[in-house]
């Protein structure tokens, strides 16, 4: 990683932390909040790419685990990862990486729809695939219940995908930082 990559990693880790300034809304059944922070991996991947975006979210998770209060509502500590939302949070770096990888892959012909699909895949499908079973395990409820409870995240996450697509496209046009691979 070049110095520039390191600075970008820090930038997107900070951006994810800053998204935590929007107040979270906790869902009663599953005990995991609706949070603007799940946009962090989408923006990091789509703007900074696979390597830097993935590293940014990994750094963010490490800092949270070390106890810095960077999660929405000023929370931090290993308790976050070990709590019901831990599966989602641990998937954020993976989601950022996959989104970045696919965006870089398709950079030359990236339509709005294609990009939205990529963000849904990484930011929702992949993240929920680990997040939901994790809730079930931590909260000791059955998988179906965890899945139904998590359905409440979908409207918010759909809005975040739309916002992230619009932002990422405008930013890439204004200040290109990615090379097609």
């Amino acid at each position: 990683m070049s110095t520039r990559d390191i600075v970008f990693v820090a930038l997107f880790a900070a951006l994810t932390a800053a998204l935590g300034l929007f107040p979270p809304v906790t869902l009663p059944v599953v005990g995991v909040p609706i949070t603007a922070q799940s946009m962090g991996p989408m923006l990091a991947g789509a703007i900074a790419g696979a390597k830097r975006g993935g590293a940014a979210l990994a750094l963010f998770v490490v800092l949270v685990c070390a106890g810095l209060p960077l999660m929405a509502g000023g929370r931090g500590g290993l308790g976050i990862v070990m709590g019901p939302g831990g599966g989602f949070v641990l998937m954020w770096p993976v989601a950022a990486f996959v989104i970045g990888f696919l965006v870089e892959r398709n950079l030359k012909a990236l339509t709005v729809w294609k990009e939205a699909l990529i963000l849904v895949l990484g930011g929702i499908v992949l993240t929920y695939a680990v997040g939901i079973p994790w809730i079930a395990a931590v909260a000791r409820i059955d998988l179906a219940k965890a899945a139904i409870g998590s359905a409440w995240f979908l409207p918010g996450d759909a809005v975040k995908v739309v916002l992230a697509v619009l932002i990422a496209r405008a930013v890439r046009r204004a200040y290109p930082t990615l090379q097609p691979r």
Partner: protein
Amino acid sequence: MTPYVPGRSPVHRCPPGAKILTLVAAGTILFAWPRLDFALAALAGAGLLYGLAAIPARLVLAQLRPLAWILAVLALVQLALDGWQAGLLVAARLAALVLLAGLVTLTTRSSDLIEALQRGLAWLRPLGANPAKVGLAIALTLRFIPVLAAITAEVREAQRARGLEGSLVALAVPVVVRMLKMSDDIAAAIDARSYDPDRADG
């Protein structure tokens, strides 16, 4: 993020690694065993440590102020659902953790904190991560969070001046573009000061 308050107290002199481990342990225990007595004990402990470190009360409040209404809402929700003990537990636990995390940054120079994290992350080396780079990235992350807030405020103001109030996309795009540009400038400034990411241990 919280600023560093210079001092010579035992809390200041405690090795940063130990502080972080304590913080991690406290977070783990408080969430693994959600008990009111633990949370209150942690809160009292945090208060004691602030006293020991001689942190002005003003700064203690500054740590909690941004949380005030989140604390209130959390406590109320829990109160409504599970009774006053649950509400108090959630509020006390959150306050204790935020105060303890704040204490680490208030009493540790960030270069020491980063060195400690770097040493703590040495095990990542076989995975291809360079602890020195991680250290720099951490320092920059902590710096960027308030800068992001400041830039967001500046951009929002400029847009209000052009008659726009409250479009998220229109706000986010210039903020990110400016941050990217700033990142490029900072990267150049770091390189110009002979930073060499490949020569580890800085």
